[in-house]
């Protein structure tokens, strides 16, 4: 049995009388690429924000890298990376300034910062762009840079909230190559998406409908179970029953 | 036409949905009227002064009673040395000191001449000056009473009549000013920010690629603000009539017509800014620094225009609020008709026309 880095039991979040996340339970293993699927408004982002320590659950239990999501949010934050669907680098800072800034606030030493930023720029091939303002970069590059920056402090888990929204297929492919790379190094990847072809790249996926997890397994097994040929069909079958479906 | 209504509905929804916007739209005018009407007077009242009575005789006491009775002063009788007076000035505790010398009564009765010293804190010239004037008047009055019986020949008396504002209320001056200020604020700042916001969020592009004509896009932005501004005008007028008890002497319709003209002026200014500014922050800074402060300064309601140095007087001529302020004052307070303000109206129309042409041209250019 692999080490479990995320454990979630009957986790619930209510806003007033609206239940955004309704008693979900699952585990994520170390080094796994865990896909978190669902239609818009199904509760993906809310669930993810609770796991990142951005939002306190209403009830249920969850731990991330061994820390409790109620009490130890700040300890969780030290051990995770996060990249949101909204672009989160400073557009009016240069590439190198952004890297050094984020490395700095995660408490890396001067030596580490220098080494890390060189490594990162090498890997992305951004040598000629280091002094450019991030705002001037094409979107695909921005996303790749944001991903790398989110990994700069070597977190145990990285949370990606619709990381490939709006980028071209080539960049998406490269992006997933980067995801595989970090996963191979033992970093757990928790990713939300609504591109079903991306779901196929995950080790396991969960599908959320109306705040509940309706299915959770490896993509291949899900397809067998529902007797369809693609993840797209699996998703369609499940989401069709949603009360507030937005597909 | 149906599209137009849809658009206007959307615009209203934007404005009315956000409490903070409503606060500015309707809260600010109300607060301003109340504050200007009740709190801000150029009058000087309740000034703290000390009276140092070294004489302590009949005359000095009689005069002191008169000073104490005045609502202008909050007088305290205490004997202070010069250095103590200075200390009180420095701590900002008192505004003036009145000093009666020893033998005041004696000098007055026998030498027919006595002296009172007034030391005032002139760091605030307005207050200092006014206090000096009030004190001098009280003293002169007292003196006149003393000689009242001694039947003086060749007495010239003067009857003063305060026209339009017999109680010298500050509201007569401020209400027209606040109207100019609020309309400027709502129309210029709100419109420019709301248009630029659509630019920033990219929704402007969506509107412009729709079959909807660009000129209608602008019009439908303008109509809600025109209506909201008229609501504001009505609110301000109601408040000033019923709360500040400042009646509208002239024609209400004329007042509204002129207000519509000024609102259009302001809307075209807002449009002009929005064609220039790229971000909301820029739009706000231009509206604030470029429009609001000049309105406050140059319209003449805070500071008398005739006191400006010549270059500033010239600048004030192109500030629309200045003309609107004169118009409102003339119609509302003086109660005169259109014949008294046709010149101001003409100037305002000219400015509006100019602004509209420039901003529409700019807007078109951006489209091409």
């Amino acid at each position, binding site marked *: 049995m692999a080490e479990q880095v995320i454990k979630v039991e009957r986790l619930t979040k209510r806003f007033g009388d609206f239940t955004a996340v309704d008693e979900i339970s699952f585990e994520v293993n170390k080094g796994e690429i865990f896909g978190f699927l669902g239609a818009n408004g199904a509760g993906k982002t809310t669930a993810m924000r609770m796991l990142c*320590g*951005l*939002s306190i659950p209403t009830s249920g239990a969850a731990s991330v890298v061994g820390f409790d999501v109620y009490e130890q*949010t700040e*300890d969780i934050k030290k051990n995770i990376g996060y990249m949101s669907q909204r672009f989160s680098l400073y557009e*009016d800072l240069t590439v190198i*300034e952004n890297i050094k*800034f984020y490395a*700095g*606030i995660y408490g890396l030493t001067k030596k580490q910062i220098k080494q890390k930023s060189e490594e990162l720029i090498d890997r992305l091939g951004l040598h000629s762009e280091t002094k450019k303002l991030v705002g001037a970069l094409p979107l695909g590059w921005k996303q790749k840079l944001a991903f790398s920056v989110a990994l700069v402090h070597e977190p145990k888990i990285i949370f990606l909230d619709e990381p490939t929204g709006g980028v071209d297929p080539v960049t998406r492919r490269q992006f997933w190559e980067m995801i595989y790379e970090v996963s191979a190094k033992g970093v757990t990847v928790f990713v939300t998406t609504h591109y079903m072809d991306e779901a196929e790249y995950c080790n396991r996926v969960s599908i959320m409908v109306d705040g509940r997890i309706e299915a959770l397994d490896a993509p291949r097994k899900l397809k067998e179970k529902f007797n369809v040929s693609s993840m797209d069909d699996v998703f369609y079958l499940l989401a069709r029953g949603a009360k507030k479906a937005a597909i | 036409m149906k599209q137009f209504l849809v658009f206007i509905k959307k615009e209203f929804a934007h404005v009315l949905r956000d409490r*903070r916007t409503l606060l*500015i739209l309707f*809260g*600010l005018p109300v607060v*301003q009227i109340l504050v200007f009407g*009740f709190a*801000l007077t*150029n*009058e000087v*009242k309740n000034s703290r002064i000390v009276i140092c009575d070294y004489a302590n005789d009949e005359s000095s006491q009689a005069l002191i009673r008169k000073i104490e009775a005045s609502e202008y002063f*909050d007088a305290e009788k205490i004997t202070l040395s010069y250095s103590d007076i200075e200390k009180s000035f420095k701590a*900002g505790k008192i*505004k003036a000191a009145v000093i009666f010398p020893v033998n005041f009564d004696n000098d007055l009765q026998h030498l*027919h*001449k*006595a*002296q009172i010293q007034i030391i*005032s804190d*002139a*760091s*605030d*010239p307005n207050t*200092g000056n006014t206090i000096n*004037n009030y004190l001098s008047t009280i003293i002169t009055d007292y*003196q006149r009473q003393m*000689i009242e019986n*001694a039947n003086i*020949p*060749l*007495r*010239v008396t003067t009857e*003063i009549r305060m*026209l339009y*504002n*017999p109680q*010298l*209320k500050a509201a007569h*001056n401020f209400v027209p000013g606040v109207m100019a200020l609020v309309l400027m604020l709502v129309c210029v700042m709100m419109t420019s920010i709301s248009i630029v916001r659509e630019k920033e969020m990219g929704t402007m592009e969506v509107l412009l690629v729709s079959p909807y004509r660009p000129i209608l896009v602008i019009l439908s932005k303008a109509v809600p603000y025109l209506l909201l501004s008229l609501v504001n005008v009505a609110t301000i007028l109601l408040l000033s009539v019923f709360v500040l008890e400042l009646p509208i002497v002239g024609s209400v319709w004329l007042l509204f017509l002129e207000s519509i003209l000024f609102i259009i002026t302001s809307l075209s200014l807002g449009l002009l800014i929005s064609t220039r500014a790229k971000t*909301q922050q820029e739009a*706000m800074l231009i509206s604030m*620094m470029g429009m609001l*402060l000049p309105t406050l300064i140059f319209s003449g309601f*805070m500071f*008398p225009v005739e*006191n400006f*140095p010549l270059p*500033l007087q010239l600048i004030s001529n192109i500030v629309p609020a200045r003309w609107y302020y004169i118009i409102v*004052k003339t119609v509302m*307070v*003086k109660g005169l008709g259109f014949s008294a303000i046709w010149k101001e109206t003409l100037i305002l129309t000219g400015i509006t026309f100019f602004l509209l042409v420039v901003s529409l041209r700019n807007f078109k250019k951006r489209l091409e």
Partner: protein
Amino acid sequence: MRTIRFLLQKEFRQILRNKTILAVVVMVPIVQLIILPLAADYEVKNVSLCIVDNDHSTYSQKLIAKITASGYFKLVDFPESYRDGLKLIESDKADVILSIPSNFERNLIRDDTQELFVSVNAINGVKANLGGAYVLGIIREFNSVIRTEWIQAPRFSNIPVIDIAITNWYNPYMNYKIFMVPGILAVLVTMMGGYVSALNIVKEKELGTIEQMNVSPIRKHHFILGKLIPFWILGMIVLTIGLTVGFLIYGIVPEGKIGLIYLFAAVYLVSVLGLGFLVSTYSETQQQAMFLSFFFIMIFIMLSGLFTSIDSMPQWTKVITWFNPVTYFIQVMRMIVLKGSGFMDILPHLLKVAGIGLVLNIWAIRNYKKTS
């Protein structure tokens, strides 16, 4: 500590790169300090006067000459009738009408008493009051002159006269600019601190970068300090520019210690920044932040005593001014610059502003949540 250094570095880079903000920080104080004091002149001079002279006598001529010579009035016209005079007032060509009744001189000598009529356009109450007082003063003087001419002077020497000696301290020439510059400077520093800080934080909210901060282990107070310190420094720069402009253009040298101004400003800025920060925690968009801070700062400035005296306000607004930090800053600026007040004089103000700052900042920190 290291974290704060990184935050500060980032903040300064962004500020220095933003040309609009820089222009606002540098240019606005200069332009405002040059223009505002020139315009904000309450001194009543150049009152326009028209005289309806129905008498055309030596006395009426004498009175007119006296008024012209006084320097307070600009004689605009001699209308034929009071009605014509009223038209001049309606068109704002004249502020005051003085009408001299027919047979003024003859009746004065015959009846020993005569009445003059003065009508003042009182829409602007202050101007009316002062204008009226000037006219009265001149008439009184005129009266005593003709009296001494008519009757032998010695007979009246036993009328008691009270001589009023007025001494104006701190600003003997009643120069309005010296009074306005410190006040306007205080307002500029306030706007800088209140607006720009609120906008800056909300901008991070709109862009989503604040989320990235919240998901990092960065401490709450580090983040806040990282935001406050740059704007605190900007405020101090605005103050320095303003004091320099005041010296170069108006020759204003503070009577008191400059160090005291900075000490007070240092504490004051913390409370204004607290306000800006508080506004930002209640706003989701820049537009909301602008409107909120505009609303409060506008009221604060109106009730600050910048233009009008607080003593004359009704009780309920006086109570509001106790909680208005701008009031204290303007008072202290004027006290130090004009009167040379010392540390003990401003201590009460300093403590109150510190108290307000403490409350605002604690409120803001409580309301700012990394985790919702």
